[in-house]
């Protein structure tokens, strides 16, 4: 059994070199498809990250009725924090609000004030899990006693959540189309490669080879080709990604604040297993099913 396993693996590797044009064509097809897939995946992931970062900056500000005690404010904070929409809630005291205002707007003229003009401006800054939930939360906040005013950024929230949804739909569409094209192209290439060796499969079957014995070298060959077809675009994307990020950073330095690119490690966390899975999987199933057609001798 071990010698059979060793033999079939060896045959699989030998076949790759023996049919080098077929192997090259297969690797190139898989590489091209997975490269496109990888590029789209990387762009989409970064887009989503940019949108998410922008979303995280969106906040709701809550002001209280005059004379609301600190105990009551703590109660309200606890109520709000329990809501599913809320990611983070920060308390800004009246003094902190005045300090921030002074620094931002008054500069050298701030010394003229002896009392805090924003004495009733203690507030909560609420950050959301998902901007699309803003409307529901605002309605709730407006119903809570002692809350005087709720400030929100409706336009930004709607635009961002809509944009994010659009990107998700487009990306899902592109990825599905790319995968379908990959499977079609690759199974076609594998079919042509195996049809050439139909005679060889027939001889093996006449001699009394089991389906496993006939199939194993082809499947191993398919899996190695698939793995190579995944490794090449992954390497290319790894190298190109750093260069593109560097280029965009230099060329569009104005946008540095808006465009925050993910580190390559984060992109590869999913891209690496998905690409290898698709490559090896297509190699496996492509050769497995194509050989099956020729096994009925």
């Amino acid at each position, binding site marked *: *059994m071990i*010698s*059979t396993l060793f*033999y079939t693996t060896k045959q699989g590797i030998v076949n790759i070199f*023996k049919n080098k044009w077929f192997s090259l064509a297969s690797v190139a097809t898989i590489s091209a498809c997975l490269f496109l897939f990888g590029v789209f995946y990387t762009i989409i992931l970064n887009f989503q990250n940019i949108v998410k970062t922008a979303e995280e900056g969106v906040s709701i500000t809550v002001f209280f009725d005059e004379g609301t005690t600190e105990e009551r404010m703590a109660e309200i904070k606890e109520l709000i924090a329990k809501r599913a929409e809320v990611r983070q809630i920060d308390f800004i005291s009246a003094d902190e609000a005045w300090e921030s205002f002074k620094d931002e707007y008054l500069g050298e003229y701030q010394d003229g004030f002896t009392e805090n003009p924003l004495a009733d401006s203690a507030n909560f800054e609420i950050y959301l899990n998902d901007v699309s939930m803003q409307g529901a939360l605002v309605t709730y906040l407006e119903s809570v006693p002692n809350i005087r005013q709720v400030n929100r950024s409706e336009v930004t929230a709607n635009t961002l959540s809509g944009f994010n949804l659009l990107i998700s739909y487009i990306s899902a569409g592109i990825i599905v189309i790319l995968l379908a094209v990959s499977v079609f192209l690759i199974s076609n290439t594998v079919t042509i490669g195996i049809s050439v060796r139909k*005679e*060889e499969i*027939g*001889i*093996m*079957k*006449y*001699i*009394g*080879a*089991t*389906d496993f*014995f006939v199939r194993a070298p082809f499947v191993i060959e398919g899996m190695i080709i698939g793995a190579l077809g995944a490794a090449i675009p992954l390497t290319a994307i790894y190298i190109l990604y750093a260069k593109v990020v560097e280029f965009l950073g230099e060329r569009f330095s104005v946008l540095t604040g808006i465009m925050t690119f993910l580190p390559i490690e984060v992109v590869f966390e999913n891209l690496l297993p998905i690409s290898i899975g698709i490559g090896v999987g297509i190699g496996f199933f492509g050769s497995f099913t194509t050989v099956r057609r020729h096994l009925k*001798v």
Partner: protein
Amino acid sequence: MALERRRKKQKQKAEDVVILDHVSKAYSTGAPALDNVSLRVKKGEFVFIVGDSGSGKSTLIKLLLKELNPTSGTIIVNGQDLGRLRRRKIPKFRRGLGIVFQDFRLLKDRNVYENVAFAQRVIQAPIRDMRKAVPAVLSLVGLAGKYKAKPRELSGGEQQRVALARALVNHPSLILADEPTGNLDPKNTKEIMKLLEDINDRGATIIMVTHNREVVNEMKKRVITMKKGVIVSDEKEGEYLDD
């Protein structure tokens, strides 16, 4: 008396390597390829099957290999009822047969040794057994010195000897040869027939489909003549009949 008769029948059955009982084979188009054929081949026999193209010879070989299933009737090969043989058991069944084709059917990219060893690999023979069996069978067919050659470097006769070595290496009890001399010149034909005769003398049963009149008439073996899917004659020391 009845017991004795049953024993005799059982003994006879054990001696029969091939039994065809009222076998018919019809393809989806045209006339039947085999029409109600019955025959028995005993262990150690050398049988020629002759007939024109379309007489049903090749269909018969395909049925014996279980490449095809009969439309009706029973086929027993090496004690195995092929009608009851499951698909996954076919490889094991075929390992008990040695098969030789007109077009040799060698693996073109492998050398002589590997082509013969392939039949041993298929049955998962241990490597050390393979290292003994392959050279032994190659010297039997006179190709010990050419074990490294690729099929394209060999003559037709040599290629057929490799195919014969591959068919013999697992010591099959039955050899099915489909026009084994069809692509050979008279000299090589003679050599292959001599080899087949030697193998037969060692106890193997041989069923050979052929068109070659000289070979059949020279060998003085059993000859089954087929015409339009029917056996028209079955002679013990027969000759190639004219139409």
